[in-house]
């Protein structure tokens, strides 16, 4: 029987010819990514207790993104500790305030097809866009990886999701992700591995693929993978990485899937998820009207270069509705640089947006730009759990950058296709 991309990577990392679904195997970790929130400040005390250092500094990528820029003495201390730990442990791949971990790591060429990787963050499935098996783990799990270089995994079932057709103007990968959450539920992935396939996926550029894999977390999947192809290899090479023998990590034609779900991109409408779950997504036209205070373009999910371009395509020559605010936090410094060169930032600012520095910003309620009591936000982020972006009574709606931008202009939730056409 053939194997899927996920099974091939796990078998390779476990040093076996093949693996069976349900096996508990120990895998060598090719890359461990950690950030300022779940990283050094959480693992340092236990590492000191154990009296050991990291297993291999070159296989660790450390990023400060959650508490940046610091807003008070506590967050400043967290960042200070992060920097000191990087020096202590000789972490050369330390990106301090350069953007969000899930975006910076591949941007700097650290991910490649066939890697078995862990991240100290739940949106680590983003790495699946690069043909890596990458999943999120908590701080103590990460501690185990940092000191031993290995971790256990229960070989997951593989859920295949096939998308066919091409979506229309004003529709994006974010809408696909929300549609899947609504259809399959927040536990549709059952902590198994999702493989996205089909012509829609093959035609997606890398940043859109990242959005899809990122939100495998909102399906409750452990990992979300796209089989590596020429598009993947070209991105990895351009980022200074080595795509290696990526062909070897494509799923075999006779591989088996636990279940296959099929979706059609051709009739996909822009999606909006009402509070407090991404699974509350519905076609934009079917969402009850709501007063929105803050429009937010941010996060690893919704502030990559293409996301900013989507917003700019709508905001060009328009302005944010009176009495409303549009806040933009680009996902990385490199993206901010490119978006500045491309004139994208100028369009956003001229429309009345306020710009936050690259980082997680308001997405997890840790950084800058959070919500006050009872405020309502429409965001291009991944998650709208109760109180996530600030005060516990605040509410979040989720949508694509197109929809957020079109709605910011109108002052309420709006179908971006009305603006485009």
């Amino acid at each position, binding site marked *: 029987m053939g194997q899927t991309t996920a099974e091939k990577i796990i078998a390779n990392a476990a040093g076996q010819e093949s693996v069976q679904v349900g096996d508990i195997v120990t895998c060598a970790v090719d890359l461990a990514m950690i950030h300022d929130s*779940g990283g050094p400040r959480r693992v340092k005390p236990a590492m000191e207790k154990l009296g050991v250092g990291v297993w291999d500094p070159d296989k660790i990528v450390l990023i400060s993104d959650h508490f940046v820029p610091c807003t008070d003495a506590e967050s400043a201390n*967290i960042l200070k500790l992060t920097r000191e730990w990087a020096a202590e442990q000789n972490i050369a791949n330390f990106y301090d305030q350069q953007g969000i971990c899930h975006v910076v790591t591949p941007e700097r060429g650290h991910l490649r097809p066939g890697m078995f990787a862990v991240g100290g963050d739940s949106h680590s499935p983003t790495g699946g866009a690069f043909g890596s098996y990458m999943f*999120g783990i908590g701080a103590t799990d990460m501690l185990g990886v940092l000191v031993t270089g290995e971790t256990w995994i229960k070989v997951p079932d593989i859920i295949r999701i096939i998308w066919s057709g091409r979506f229309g103007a004003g529709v994006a990968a974010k809408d696909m992700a929300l549609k899947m959450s609504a259809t399959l539920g*927040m536990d549709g992935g059952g902590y198994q591995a999702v493989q996205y396939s089909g012509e829609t996926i093959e035609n997606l550029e890398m940043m859109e693929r990242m959005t899809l894999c990122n939100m495998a977390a909102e399906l409750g999947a452990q990992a979300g993978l796209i089989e590596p192809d020429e598009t993947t290899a070209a991105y990895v090479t351009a980022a200074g990485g080595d795509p290696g023998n990526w062909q070897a990590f494509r799923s075999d034609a006779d591989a088996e899937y636990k279940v296959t779900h099929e979706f059609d991109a051709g009739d996909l409408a822009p999606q909006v998820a009402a509070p407090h779950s991404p699974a509350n997504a519905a076609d934009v036209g079917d969402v009850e009207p709501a007063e929105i205070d803050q429009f937010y373009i941010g996060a690893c999910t919704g502030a990559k270069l293409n996301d900013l371009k989507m917003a700019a395509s709508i905001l060009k020559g328009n302005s944010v509705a009176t009495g409303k605010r549009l806040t933009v936090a680009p996902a990385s410094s490199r993206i901010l640089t490119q978006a500045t060169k491309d004139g994208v930032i100028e369009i956003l600012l001229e429309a009345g947006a306020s710009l936050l520095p690259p980082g997680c910003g308001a997405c997890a309620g840790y950084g800058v730009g959070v919500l006050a009591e009872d405020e309502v936000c429409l965001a291009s982020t991944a*998650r709208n759990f109760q109180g996530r972006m600030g005060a516990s009574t605040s509410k979040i709606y989720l949508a694509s950058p197109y929809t957020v931008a079109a709605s910011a202009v109108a002052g309420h939730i709006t179908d971006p296709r009305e603006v485009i056409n």
Partner: protein
Amino acid sequence: MSGRVWKFGDDVNTDVLAPGIYIKLPIDELASHCLEAVEPNFASSVAEGDIVVGGKNFGMGSSREQAAQVLKELGVAAVIAPSFGGIFYRNAFNLGLPAIVSDDIGKIDDKHELKIDLKTGGIQNMTTGTELTGEAIPDNLLALVEAGGLVPYLEIKLNKK
């Protein structure tokens, strides 16, 4: 182990367990906000040895380990649910907090007394006198619970080398 039940619904997420806005605070202060969005009395009233029973996908959401750590901090002895957010599930065992998968939670109500056999996954509802079934905990995870979590487990393993 045995204890009194706090029962919650489906999809209890990590942001509700350990709210982001308090995440910088020391664990005891963060714990005082645990679940406040759904049950304001929980953190102040939960007692050592109590058992949290949740609906499907308990602990879904972020990787923040504090979501499991606050329960441990408040003295919760175990969590039972029909399914767990995968990262929460791993985190719980890494901290020595057993997470038991059971489809029988319909037979448990708030404030019931339960007795749990971690090895077999068997659950006795002492209040109603019924036997419920849960899944046995895999050996590698039981070893973590027995050691008291991954750190003490590694301490033993690394010292043996």
